[in-house]
C-alpha cells in the first residue's frame, strides 16, 4: 500500500568546515505529506535544497522512485517530478504571469523562440482550472508585483500541478499570509494527497504543520532527532517536544 517515492541515505552536507547535515536518513511515501520541523539553523532549508538540486550533498545517496539519482540542478529535479514552492522566491516580480509560469521550461520552437500563443493559453488554463482565479483583475498579463502573498503561492502551486510533479517541496508556505490565505494554502496541501502526490514542507507554525502533515521529522543541528506519525503524537506533545529540544539546546550552549 505505502509505496516509497523518495529516500535519502546517509546524506552529509558540508559548507567548507561547517557540517550542516549529518547522516540524514529519511523516506517519503507516495501520497504522504511530511513536515520538517526544527529551529533556525537546524538544516531544514539545506535539506530541501539538496532534494531540489540547488545544493549537491557532500556524500550520501538519493533514491527517487526506487532508482538512485544524482540531482545536479534544479532543472533536473524538475524533470524528475520534484517541484519547489518557495514563499519569497517562487516568482519574479516584474514579469508577467504567462512568462513566470513557464520560466526555466519555456515552450519554444526549434530555434528557441517562445510559443507565446501556447504559453498564454496554457497559463490561462492554469489560472482558471488549477488555481481558480476568476477575478478579472488577475490575467496572464498581470505582473507578479500586484499579487498578494496567497495569490503568489497559488500561482506556484498551480504551476506544480500543471507540470504534474510527484513531490512538492514547500518552504514556509504560510509565512506572511493572512489567516484566510493560510487556510487556502493548507487546503491545497491536503488536496495533494487525494491525487496521490507527496509533499515535504517546512513551517514554523506547529499548528499549521500538525493540521496538514501525516508525519513529522524533527531536525536539530543537522541531525534527525525524532520522527513521529500523526497518530503517535498529539499536537500538544509535539509542541512539548519542540520546547524540550529548544531548551536542551540552550542548556548545552550555556554549559
Amino acid at each position, binding site marked *: 500500500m505505502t509505496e516509497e517515492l523518495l529516500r535519502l541515505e546517509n546524506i552529509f552536507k558540508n559548507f567548507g568546515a561547517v557540517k550542516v547535515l549529518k547522516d540524514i536518513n529519511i523516506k517519503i511515501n507516495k501520497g504522504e505529506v511530511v513536515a520538517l520541523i526544527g529551529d533556525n539553523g537546524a538544516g531544514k532549508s539545506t535539506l530541501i535544497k539538496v532534494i531540489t538540486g540547488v545544493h549537491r550533498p557532500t556524500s550520501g545517496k538519493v533514491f527517487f522512485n526506487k532508482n538512485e539519482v544524482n540531482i545536479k540542478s534544479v532543472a533536473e529535479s524538475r524533470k524528475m517530478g520534484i517541484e519547489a514552492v518557495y514563499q519569497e522566491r517562487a*516568482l519574479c516580480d516584474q514579469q508577467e504571469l504567462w*512568462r513566470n509560469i513557464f520560466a526555466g521550461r*519555456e515552450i519554444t520552437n526549434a530555434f528557441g523562440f517562445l510559443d507565446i500563443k501556447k504559453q498564454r493559453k496554457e497559463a490561462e488554463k492554469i489560472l482558471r482550472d488549477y488555481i481558480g482565479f476568476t477575478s478579472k483583475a488577475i490575467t496572464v498579463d498581470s505582473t507578479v508585483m500586484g499579487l498578494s502573498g496567497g495569490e503568489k503561492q497559488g500561482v506556484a502551486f498551480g504551476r506544480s500541478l500543471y507540470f504534474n510533479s510527484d513531490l512538492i517541496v514547500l518552504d514556509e508556505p504560510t509565512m506572511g499570509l493572512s489567516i484566510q490565505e493560510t487556510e487556502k494554502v493548507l487546503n491545497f496541501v491536503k488536496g495533494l494527497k487525494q491525487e496521490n502526490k507527496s509533499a515535504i514542507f517546512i513551517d514554523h507554525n506547529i499548528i499549521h504543520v500538525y493540521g496538514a502533515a501525516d508525519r513529522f521529522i524533527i531536525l536539530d543541528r543537522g541531525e534527525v532527532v525524532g520522527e513521529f506519525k500523526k497518530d503517535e503524537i498529539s499536537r500538544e506533545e509535539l509542541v512539548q517536544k519542540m520546547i524540550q529540544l529548544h531548551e536542551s539546546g540552550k542548556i548545552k550552549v550555556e554549559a
Partner: protein
Amino acid sequence: MNNILNSYFVKTHKLEISITIIAIALFLIYFLGAPHVFTRFPIYRAFMQSMPFFGIIAISATFVVTLGEIDLSFPSIVGITSLTFGMLLTATDGNFFIAFLLATSLGMFAGLINGLLVTKIGIPSIVATIGTLFFWRGLVNVISQGSGIAIVDVADGTWHHTLFVEKLFGKIPAQFIWFIVLTALMQWVYRYHKFGNHIHFVGDNKASSQMMGINVDNVKIIAFVQLGFFSALAGIFTMYEMLYFWPTQGEGLMLTTLAAVFVGGTSVFGGRGTIFGTFIGVLIIGSLESGIVALGLSGFYVKFINGLMITVAVSIYAIIQRKKT
C-alpha cells in the same frame, strides 16, 4: 481619449510612448529652430552614417543592463578588435573572412572574460569591466605602439566595403540598414527568445531564477559575450567608414552608448527594459550635437543639453515607475 489612455497597449508601453514623445519634441525643436538644415537631406544622411557605430553597441548593451549588470569595457573591446581587424586585413592583403572571424572571435573572448570574472570569480561587473577597460586599451597601446593602420588599400572599393558602408541608392548608408535590421532582430530575441526571457528573469531576481531552473551564470556569460561580439562588429563598421584604425578608437563611446540605453528607459536595477527605447535613445543622443549646432548654439552647449536630456528622461521613468508600485 480616455479610452485610448486606458488601453492595454498604452498601459504596458508607457516608457516607449514617453521616449517617443520626447524624441518627436526634440526633432520638432530642430525643425522649427533650423529649418534650413532640417528640411534638407544631408543632415539625416550624416545621422544615418554616424549613429550605427554606437547604436549597435547600445542595443546589445541593453541586454547586459537588463540583467542588472554593466559593461564599461566595450570601448576598449572596440579598440582591440579594430586593431586586430586592421592588422589582419592588411597582413592577408584583404582577406575579409579571416579578419572578420578573428576580430569578432576576439570580441567574444573579451566578453567571455568579463562574464567569467563576474560569475565565477564573483567580481561586481562595474569593477571587473573597469579592469578589462584598462587592460584591453593598454594592450592596444602596447601592440600598436601608438600608431594607426590605414586599410584604404585593402578595403576601399571591395565587396565587403560595399556591404558595410556603401550608400544604398546613393543616399542611405548601408550601416544604417544593418542597424535597423539588427535592432529588429535583437528586439525579437529580447522579447520572444528563451535567452531574452531569461535575461529578464535573472535581472529581476537572481535567486528566484535559480530556483526556477534558469542557469544564471550561463545567461550572464552569454550576455557579455554577445556584447563583445557587437562591440567588435561596431568597430569593423567604423573601420570601413574611416578606412583607418587609430589607437584611441572606441574611446568616447562609453557615455553616449550608456546614455542611449538609459534615456531609452531600460532600468539600471534590472528586469525591465526596452530595445525600442534604446533605439529612440540612440536617435536622441546621436542627434544632439549636430542639432544643437544647427540651432545656432555654440558647441559648448552640447554636453549641457545632453545632461539635461538624460536627467529629465530618467526622472520621468522614475515617476512612472513609482506610480506603478
